[in-house]
């Protein structure tokens, strides 16, 4: 929510810059996501958590600032306004009927005559702009202004468009319809709060006004209304209609019953300022449900025990009082605007901690202690280590699969758990086994000289879920997979992938795989490795790499790890260097070994030209020659 720094100052006088304010608010629990200058003002964009509907207004945030800095609100800006000046006698009236008190606990209104619809003055447009509202006309703008200022959503109806001033508030029946202000005809389900007269439904209460009661340039009398509606009904309606407004957003989170009249009267007063001839009627205030005060008893000992503090009862009370709680004998009366989120003593503890300052709390770490061992976890992690030692790379793939892939793999979509209302076709079903994932990885790496991968993840069918190990290699040889089977003591078949499937996945070489459920593997014992790679990620290019092989004869004692490092540093276009062969033989001469590398080259801005590749390879050969007396072996 966008909050204007200048607008806040109308409600509370604090001496902090926008940046300081933002920092302090974030530490107080009101996260400021961005700060932007707007002419002579600064706009703070806040992330308000769903439990703090009371913060969805300037007044609400001013209260937070008041508690944070221990500065009182400006009295002149916040007063009851229970009697606005000169409420006139108007011979127009409305009749408010509510089908159930819990639907609309409070409904207040003023009828205002002599309305002249005009553009708004600049100061009002500016305030609206700071929040993100467009200016519409003086009356609508006042209602939006007051909603943002006070948190009370308001709506102005054209009095003459309503038959007999009839405000019947009830729940909709299935398939009833209403045309809203945006000219959309909305079909309702049952249970949505609507307002009607005996001719038509003219308001989607709490969400959006109706087209048929809309204020327009000819409107001469309005009914200015401020209501409290049931949060759950508003939320359900908003979800059903797939329509959220600034108004419904506030209702869902709870609007302050006791703040209702302030909002209404502030709006009436502003309209009178903008339209001097306007006459506002007496206050109509229908309390369908009384205000229910909430008191929470607390035990200072328990609060200290929860927070890890040593606060006295007085200190705890003082902290709560700063937030407008009224304290009497370890019982806190919750301010009316906090009813929706402060319900138990632990909520009070959080408020105490906020004022105390979370960062003033001590740090008392737990002692070291031996943990019971999860043999399954250790065993599966050890399998990963054993495969890595054999030269496999662990991949992780999404758990989803689409219908086409299921078909090509000869699997039934009907057996697979299916996602409701998915936005993407790739995200429709959960995968039944790891084959499609492994193949997708191979598709992605056509330039890799060989692909040796494994995945260990969950797979799904109907309502079962199990862990599976999938291992795959490209190329004609079985050997590596055979060594995997042997090392892990797995009794499973090596399978070849059908040409038809390879074609679908655009894979142009043979693929062999092993897929086995974890339950069918005897888990190895022992600890898994805690080594973490020390490399910093080198960004990979949008363009495909070029891979060249180089083989050298070097002294037996030269470390291949060192060679990899040295070669990589030869040129910035070298992304990776992989050792794929290393062996000594007398035919190389005494104390010599053969080392062979895949050199992966890339350019971040383009595909590398053949010339450039040749140059880099030459550089490597020169370096190897001069530093290691390495002889290039031609393939």
């Amino acid at each position, binding site marked *: 929510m966008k909050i204007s720094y200048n607008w806040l100052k109308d409600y509370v006088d604090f001496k902090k810059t926008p940046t300081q304010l933002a920092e302090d608010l974030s530490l107080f629990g009101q996260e400021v996501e961005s700060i932007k200058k707007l002419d002579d003002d600064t706009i703070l964009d806040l992330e308000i958590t*769903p439990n703090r509907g009371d913060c969805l207004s300037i007044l609400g945030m001013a209260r937070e600032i008041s508690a944070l800095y221990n500065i009182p609100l400006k009295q002149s800006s916040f007063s009851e306004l229970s009697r606005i000046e000169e409420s006139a006698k108007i011979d127009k009236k409305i009749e408010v009927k509510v089908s159930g008190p819990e639907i609309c606990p409070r409904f207040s209104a003023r009828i205002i005559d002599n309305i002249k619809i005009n553009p708004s003055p600049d100061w009002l447009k500016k305030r609206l702009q700071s929040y993100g509202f467009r200016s519409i006309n003086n009356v609508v703008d006042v209602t939006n202004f007051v909603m943002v200022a006070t948190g009370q959503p308001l709506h102005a109806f054209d009095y003459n468009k309503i038959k007999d001033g009839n405000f019947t508030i009830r729940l909709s029946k299935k398939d009833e319809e209403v045309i809203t202000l945006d000219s959309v005809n909305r079909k309702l389900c049952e249970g949505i709060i609507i307002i009607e007269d005996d001719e038509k439904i003219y308001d989607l209460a709490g969400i959006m006004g109706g087209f048929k009661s809309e204020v327009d340039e000819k409107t001469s009398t309005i009914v200015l209304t401020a209501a409290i509606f049931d949060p759950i009904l508003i939320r359900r309606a908003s979800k059903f209609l797939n329509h959220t407004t600034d108004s419904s957003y506030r209702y869902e989170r709870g609007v302050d019953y006791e703040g209702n009249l302030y909002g209404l009267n502030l709006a009436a007063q502003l309209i009178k300022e903008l339209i001097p001839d306007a006459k506002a009627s007496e206050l109509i205030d229908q309390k369908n449900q009384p205000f229910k005060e909430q008191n929470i008893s607390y035990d200072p000992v328990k609060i200290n025990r*929860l927070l890890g503090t040593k606060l006295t009862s007085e200190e705890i009370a003082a902290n709560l009082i700063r937030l407008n709680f009224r304290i009497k004998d370890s019982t806190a009366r919750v301010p009316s605007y906090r009813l929706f989120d402060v319900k138990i003593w*632990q909520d009070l503890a959080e408020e105490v901690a906020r004022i105390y300052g979370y960062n003033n709390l001590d740090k*008392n770490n737990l002692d070291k202690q031996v943990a019971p061992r*999860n043999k399954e976890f250790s065993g599966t992690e050890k399998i990963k280590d054993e495969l890595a030692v054999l030269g496999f790379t*662990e991949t992780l793939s999404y758990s989803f699969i689409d219908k086409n892939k299921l078909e090509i793999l000869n699997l039934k979509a009907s057996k697979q758990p299916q996602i409701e209302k998915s936005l993407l076709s790739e995200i429709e079903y959960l995968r039944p086994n790891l084959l499609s994932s492994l193949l997708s990885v191979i598709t992605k790496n056509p330039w890799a000289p060989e*692909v040796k991968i494994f995945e260990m993840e969950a797979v799904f069918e109907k309502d079962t879920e199990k862990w599976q190990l999938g291992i795959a290699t490209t190329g004609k040889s079985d050997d590596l997979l055979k060594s995997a089977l042997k090392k892990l003591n797995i009794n499973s078949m090596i399978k070849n992938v059908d040409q038809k499937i390879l074609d679908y996945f655009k894979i142009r070489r043979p693929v062999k795989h092993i897929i086995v459920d974890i339950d069918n593997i005897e888990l190895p014992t022992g600890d898994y490795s805690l080594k973490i790679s020390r*490399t910093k*990620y080198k960004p990979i290019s949008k363009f495909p790499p070029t891979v060249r092989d180089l083989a050298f004869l070097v002294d037996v004692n030269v470390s291949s790890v060192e060679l990899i490092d040295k070669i990589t540093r030869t040129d910035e276009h070298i992304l990776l260097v992989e050792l794929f062969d290393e062996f000594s033989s007398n035919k190389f001469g005494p104390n010599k070994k053969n080392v062979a590398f895949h050199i992966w080259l890339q350019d971040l801005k383009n595909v590398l030209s053949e010339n450039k590749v040749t140059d880099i390879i030459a550089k490597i050969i020169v370096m190897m020659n001069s530093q290691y007396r390495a002889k290039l072996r031609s393939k």
Partner: protein
Amino acid sequence: MNGHLNPLTQFLRLSLKYFSERGFEIVEGPEIETEWFNFDALNVPADHPSRDIQDTFWLKDGRVLRTHTTATDVRHIQENKLKPPFKFVVPGRCFRNEATDQTHEHTFYQIDGIDIDKDLNMTNLIGLLDGYMKELFGANVKTRVRPHLYPFVEPGMDLDIQLPDGSWREMLGSGMAHPIVLKNMGIDPGKWQGIMWGMGIDRYMMQYFKIDDIRLTYSGDLRFLKQF
């Protein structure tokens, strides 16, 4: 000629090590969850805006792809009839119904932790998590905490670390176990107090390795995987 473990796996192990050294058992749970364990048991009722915080993948059969490994907490306690004191961590894959881009993914990994004991309090929680950050990022890293809403804890908080450029990066969500959640675990909130926290591993891993795109972990791109 060694192969490679996914950098995520490497990080998961390192993160778990810190908690294992403090007595936390490693527990795993299912990726498809019931609405009860993923939401209701954790004080996230239907018809409440808190449900909006997490965009969820719902299955046609009414189950849910778990949005956090916190879902396993109540399940594990219930299925094993655990009685306090106990502590465990839950690593695992989670899902959020979000459009993917450089910093957003629909698939990610979390570690969730819980410790229930007689006199655990917020200073223990802050100490534990501050120590965790120092283990991962070095003893000189500065941390700070801020109040935040998570329906299953009260008080709730976020923990940030300070980056080299001075800005703060959010790393963990945490708090004191909410009494409703304790009751759903069959635990008396009058006697026992719990600390709970959760951390997305992907973000931490990206921070450590200077990876700029969260999708790389699941891309299967060997140019990425072979670097680690």
